[in-house]
């Protein structure tokens, strides 16, 4: 229904389409790229939170003041091995025990104290990669990440098995897939060894909603020659730095992020008899209101550049601009779909 003058009411039945869901994926790392070939840590961190985790940068924070954290890596052990401190001791904060308890509490059910991997294998310790929330936004895109770890003369290439899983497990940590050896370089996941067939049990678990990759430390010791996990009690084992070195030497972490957008589409219909005049001060003379262009009499032309969405109180709630002006006249109608994402 056209209001007199400057507004036109939406027909809620025909002009407004609500709650349209769409999934958007994009490169996860800074500047929108999907592959990291470098990894840097921050030396200043090693004396503070570095006992717990390392923040990983795309560029060196020592030389690039705008270096951004991409993800963090950590090591957890059920009993705190590989870190300083013991139960009842006055010194040492048992960093690996704290990390282990933290992630178990976050993603496993009550009364579960260890991760269980494919093949019903459990392990007392793990390495974990936690994606920075700002990089991940909503979730890590399953089936679209690949991490290379250096293993002497070879590379261990890790992906998830979401492409081969029709009925993924879902628990407290959301959907979970197995981490398997393989590659996505061909565009689709190519699994080298399925999780169930992996000798020694599953390599790890992948929680896309949390942006978390948990790697079975026993399997890391077995598969990655550069990683020799120190599990001595009350000892600063240096496990996180060794895991970091393996990532640096592997020199590839490819990943995408995924967002689910909810949109509303407003179809703004300007009929042939509507919106053909303008309050633009260049459209008419201020003295008597005559057209600045005499040819506009009985054949006015206006140009649409902006569409505003209003509520009943005449408050402008959203605004959209066209890339180029669109001509409107008595012989032309305009249908503009305004998309509002939430």
């Amino acid at each position, binding site marked *: 229904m056209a209001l007199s003058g400057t507004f036109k009411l939406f027909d809620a039945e025909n002009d407004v389409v609500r709650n349209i869901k769409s999934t958007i994926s994009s490169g996860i790392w800074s500047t929108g790229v999907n592959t990291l070939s470098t990894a840097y840590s921050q030396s200043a961190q090693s004396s503070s939170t570095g006992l717990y985790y390392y923040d990983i940068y795309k560029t060196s924070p020592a030389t690039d003041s705008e270096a951004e954290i991409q993800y963090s890596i950590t090591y957890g052990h059920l009993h705190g091995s590989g870190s300083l401190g013991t139960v009842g001791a006055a010194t040492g904060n048992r960093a690996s025990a704290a990390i282990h308890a933290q992630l178990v509490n976050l993603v496993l059910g009550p009364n579960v104290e260890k991760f269980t991997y494919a093949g019903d294998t459990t392990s007392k310790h793990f390495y974990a990669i936690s994606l920075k929330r700002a990089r991940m936004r909503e979730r890590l895109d399953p089936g679209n990440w690949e991490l290379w770890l250096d293993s002497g003369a070879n590379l261990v290439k890790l992906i998830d098995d979401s492409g081969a899983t029709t009925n993924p497990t879902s628990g407290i940590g959301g959907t979970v897939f197995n981490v398997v050896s393989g590659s996505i370089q061909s565009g689709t996941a190519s699994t080298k060894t399925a999780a169930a067939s992996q000798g020694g049990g599953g390599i790890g678990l992948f929680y896309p909603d949390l942006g978390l990759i948990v790697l079975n430390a026993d399997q890391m010791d077995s598969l990655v020659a550069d990683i020799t996990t120190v599990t001595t009690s009350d000892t600063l084992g240096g496990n996180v730095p060794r895991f970091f070195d393996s990532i640096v030497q592997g020199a590839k972490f490819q990943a995408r992020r995924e967002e689910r957008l909810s949109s509303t589409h407003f179809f703004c219909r300007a009929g042939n008899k509507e919106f053909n005049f303008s309050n633009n001060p260049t459209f008419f003379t201020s003295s*008597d209101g005559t057209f600045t262009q005499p040819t506009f009499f009985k054949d006015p032309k206006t140009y649409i550049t902006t569409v505003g969405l209003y509520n009943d109180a005449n408050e402008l*709630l959203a605004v959209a601009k066209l890339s180029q002006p669109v001509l409107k006249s008595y012989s032309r109608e305009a249908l503009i779909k305004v998309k509002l994402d939430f």
Partner: protein
Amino acid sequence: MGFLNNTTITIDAVLTKRGRELLARGKNEFAVTKFSIADDEIDYRLWDTSHPNGTNYYGSVIENMPLLEPVSDETQVMKYKLVTLSKETSRLPILQVAISSLNFTQGGGNGELLAPGTMNSTDSEQGYTFIIHDTTVATLQVATAAPSPSAPLAAVTLSDEELTQSQNVSGLTARVLPQVFATPDQKSTQITIVGNQTGATTTVTVVVNKTSLGSPTSGVTKQK
């Protein structure tokens, strides 16, 4: 034979500050019910009736210009709305107010009545929106309500500071009431009047002078 382009123009909208505020309050507060179209950035003097290629190219300068991205400040967009009028319209609506500026002294009696009229059209059904940009100078009061009152239109081009102090009322006529203040000696602001049907706009300047102690003068002087 070529194909006609019948595709719908699709554009992404950005929420204004007011839109975000209402969205944050809950989904029921954010209810889009109508739209308006504007031609901000267009200068119709670029319409070139002497273009050598003929009538189809009169607007080519305008049609090929790039446009700026939208901004989220609702006071800086939708400045010049397109309006629906009769095809026979030969003159655009112009708001006229008998008083172009008001000069008060503090405590200026019953204030002054603003009774705009719309030349070349009418706003007599839905009335006018009166926006005073600084209520520390003067306030507005509806004197005559419109037969089919419209909600006040949002302020047109006000700064953040002015928005916090602005006041919008809607009616056929409104009374301007000067305020009392300690400092400075003189304050001024503007009243923007917008036709609720035609979208036509005009402004009135308001000046309020501080009353000196012992001064017998009070009231209003009008400038036509």
